């Protein structure tokens, strides 16, 4: 117990400064002002794995660690889509996960955002055209933004999230 506290106090804060502008692709004609007004200070994110290879999940998991720390911007991950404002969809939507993704989207209260992460989320990525894949996330749910990359780094994902909600760094 004491050792843990000693290490914690000695190491201090290791959070890096926030990332610069992102290359997020915005789809859909949502009013940026409204999103910023609603979610600018607090956004609850539910991550949905729609058949991903888990590469994007590993990068997203890094966001909760001390170096990227998305909580300092009011972003947080939640367990239930009922608590969520934003669905972070990874993976090409496989046939088996299409219905589950749709139900998750229906279970999320309005107003909500959907952000597709990775090239798979955009259009199927390297799995595009496969018999097991329906397409990108926009084949099942309306997508508001796409974060390109395979996989995108945590800094890129964080920058994209901040740009989508219009949060100043």
């Amino acid at each position, binding site marked *: 117990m004491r050792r843990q506290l000693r290490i914690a106090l000695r190491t201090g804060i290791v959070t890096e400064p926030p990332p610069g502008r992102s290359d997020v692709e915005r789809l859909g004609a949502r009013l940026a002002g409204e999103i910023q007004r609603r979610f600018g200070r607090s956004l609850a994110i539910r991550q949905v794995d729609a058949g991903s290879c888990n590469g994007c999940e590993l990068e997203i998991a890094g966001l909760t660690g001390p170096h990227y720390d998305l909580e300092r911007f009011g972003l947080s991950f939640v367990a239930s*889509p009922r608590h969520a404002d934003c669905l972070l969809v990874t993976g090409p939507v496989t046939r088996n996960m299409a219905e589950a993704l749709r139900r998750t989207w229906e*279970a999320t*209260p*309005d107003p909500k955002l959907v952000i597709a992460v990775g090239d798979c989320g955009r259009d199927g990525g390297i799995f595009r055209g496969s018999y097991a894949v329906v397409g990108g996330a926009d084949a099942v749910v309306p997508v508001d933004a796409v974060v390109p990359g395979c996989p995108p780094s945590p800094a890129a994902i964080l920058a994209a999230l901040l740009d989508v909600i219009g949060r100043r760094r």
Partner: protein
Amino acid sequence: MAAAGALAAAAIGLVALVLGLGGVAGSAWTVVVDWLVPLGGLELTLDPLAGLFLVLVGGVALPASFYAAGSAERSARGALAYPVFVASMCVVPLAANTMTFVIAWELMSLASYFLVLHEPEERASVRAAWVYAVMTHAGLACLLAGMLLMGAWTGSLRFADWRAAAPGLGAGARGVVFVLLAAGFAGKAGVIPLHVWLPLAHPAAPSHVSALMSGVMIKLGVYGLLRAGLDWLGAGPAWWGVAVLLAGTVSSVIGVLYALVDNDLKKLLAFSSIENVGIILIGVGAGMLYHGAGLEGLALLALAAALYHTLNHATFKALLFLGAGAVVHATGTRNMEAMGGLIKRMPWTAACFLVGSAAIAALPPLNGFVSEWLTFVALLQNTRIAQPMLNLVFALGVAGLALTSGLAMACFVKAFGITFLALPRGDAAARAHEAPPAMRAAMVALAVVCVALGLGATLVVPALVTVAGALTGDRAPVAVGDWLTLGVSGGFATLSTLAIAVALGAALALPLIALRLAGAARGQRRYETWGCGRMLQTPRMECTATAFADPFRRVFGFFYRPEKRLDITFHPGARYFVQRIEYANPTRSIFDDWLYRPALDALRSVAHRARAIQSGSANVYLAYIFAALLLLLALA
């Protein structure tokens, strides 16, 4: 025919209610009819305590009879037994001599025996009635022994004469009489370990009868204990009070532990009755101890708490049994695992059952909370008795009462939640219909009384303190606050259920207004329950009653001694696939295993040995007669 019986009972109940209220208010009268009953005649006396129990009988008999008139559970055999049952329960508190008391008591037991046996084709029903008959007559034997001994030693069979002669008897004699009477009354009240008949008899009887049995009949056992411990034998030594308090503590904890793991709705309610009788006895025991120590103010407080809980339990247990009866009538089963979703099909029953559950879980500002609060406050002042052993007993009582109330809350979350909420777990529950108007009216009336007894605590407690004072013989007034606040023992504790209720009401409205003002999003969208994206939701995915009670089964495993049984039927083709899983986790009753079965086995083996006397030979019988004649001649 059955409706006539119900109406007769309702009329008797109404008369009892009026007379009882008069008795509590102070009117006292005596009726003597010498020729009606042998060995002393019929003698009835009304005093405040008798009046209170008459109020109890009448107050529960009225809604129960309305319920009976409107229900389909009645059969021809109950038509006569039911009014006799109610009438005999009215006579018991009024009885002023032994024969009146015993005859009324026995009539009460016989009438309820026939009511319990209203389905003679069912084996379980027959067994329940049999166990009930045996236990109640064993209790009667103890009562008769005690009363006749007392009659022999004081020379009279009238209770008033016992009151006068008690100080003259030796402590040993009084102790023996107390033990016998207490055993008999405790058996009727359902105190552990004499409780085995309760969980069998109460579920087997029709619901209005269960309401009366649980709400009133077992309280007559408490009435007897009050009379035996405080009135007929005078103030007793400390061990009487300690025995009652410890019996109450043990009863309450064990009762609620058994209620938690039961899936039969009415059996759960029966065990919960055992728990609440335990709470009442904690108050009675504390009262007896304070009375013995000369702390009259605290004694009156503890006894008032016990009497209040008696009233409250009668109200909310009757309400719960009537609600359970409506549910059983609508779904055709008592098994909670087959129920669910009834709140949407039976909204009135559900709302009344919720009020009853909240009351029995002692949630403010309802009546159960006030009586438990009073019991706590009475127990917490035990340091005024400067005897460490007694302080320890009181501390045990406090801890036991706190544990009981927490477990009771859990038990009724299970009872209400599994029965009424979420989705129906079977076809019967899916097709359930609301109870007919007469049943609904009875339940609503009892729910209103629950709320009134809670909010009107400041009016009820002084009346009960007066009743307790009449019992202990102490006429000194005990100040209990004003119309708004109950204040006890000179600033030790205060309570105002009215203020709390008003505050809760205002605080309920506050968020509604605040949300409206803050411009929160209005309305809602309906969608299925979140299930991690699975394709469908069936009732089999809901929490079952067994699963809900499982943490308790584990935590209190040393007490339940569960025997887990798991039967897995694999697919004949491949062991990786499962066709059927059957899981059962029944708990064993340690009383059956360690007390009753050995006792019955011993009885059986003794009886077996005694058969040797019946040899069947006439010569041996003649020899017996000759030997008996010689013995009698020698003794004479």
